[in-house]
């Protein structure tokens, strides 16, 4: 069952990419989707299909809009730091804790952190996330970064956990 859903997903992406319903295209697509599913089906996240649940999907949309707003803010932030003559940066690596357990949620969290203002996720060790921060403003840097993490954490928890 799980494999069949993956197969349909891969075939759907293939059909969008080729944008044709000719039987030869479909045959090649089905073959490649089958091979890809055989090779990578095991590392595919177990409960990715759960996102089809309407409540989860709603929170995914909320997460998407918030994420987009932060991405745009991040770009102006970088532009400000790069184009400023004095280059106001105070970089360093901080360590924060996350409560998320599933791989999928953690992947999304790490990627969101990388694309939000001033932060770049470097590694996971256990429950701790190491983040390179371009402008550490105070000694209480960890607490401030935790706010950034928790912002996404709550939404991602509703989507994936």
């Amino acid at each position, binding site marked *: 069952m799980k494999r069949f859903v993956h197969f349909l997903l891969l075939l759907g*992406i293939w059909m*969008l*990419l080729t*944008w044709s319903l000719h039987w030869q295209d479909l045959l090649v697509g089905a073959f490649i989707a089958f091979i890809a599913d055989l090779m990578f089906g095991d590392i595919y996240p177990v409960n990715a299909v759960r996102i089809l649940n309407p409540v989860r999907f709603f929170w995914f949309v909320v997460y998407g809009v918030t994420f987009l707003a932060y*991405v*745009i803010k*991040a*770009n102006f932030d*970088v*532009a400000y*730091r*790069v*184009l400023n003559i004095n*280059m106001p*940066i*105070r*970089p*360093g*690596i*901080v*360590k924060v804790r996350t409560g998320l357990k599933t791989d999928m949620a953690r*992947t999304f969290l*790490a*990627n969101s952190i*990388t*694309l939000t203002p*001033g932060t*770049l*996720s*470097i*590694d996971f*060790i256990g429950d*701790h996330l*190491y983040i*390179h921060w*371009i402008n*550490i403003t105070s000694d209480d*840097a960890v607490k401030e970064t935790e706010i950034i993490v928790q912002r996404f954490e709550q939404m991602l928890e509703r989507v994936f956990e």
Partner: protein
Amino acid sequence: MNETIGLILLIVGISFDVVGCIGLVRLPDIYNRLQAATKCVTLGTCMILLSVVFYTGLNSIGVKALLCIWFVLITAPTGAHAIARAAHRSGIRLWEGSVMDKYADDKEGTEDTA
């Protein structure tokens, strides 16, 4: 109308890409450079692809551009994470103006298991 929107998106996207490239040259070490490169180049490239969608409409080219936006959004931060982690593990120091490095403090004794 669609062409105007596409043109605006194209100009803004290229400006963000240019800022990302300037950051790549100006910032001091690999981690800071990655910050500029991933953030600006991701949004800039996505905007250029979106302008393609507005120019051509939702035909075979437009749908490919939309799929590429999705792939760039997923792979760019993952690639940046991989580069930063590999750089740190192979012993590249942070810029001397850096404030703290909690990762180096904790990394002792943990071997790469991935």
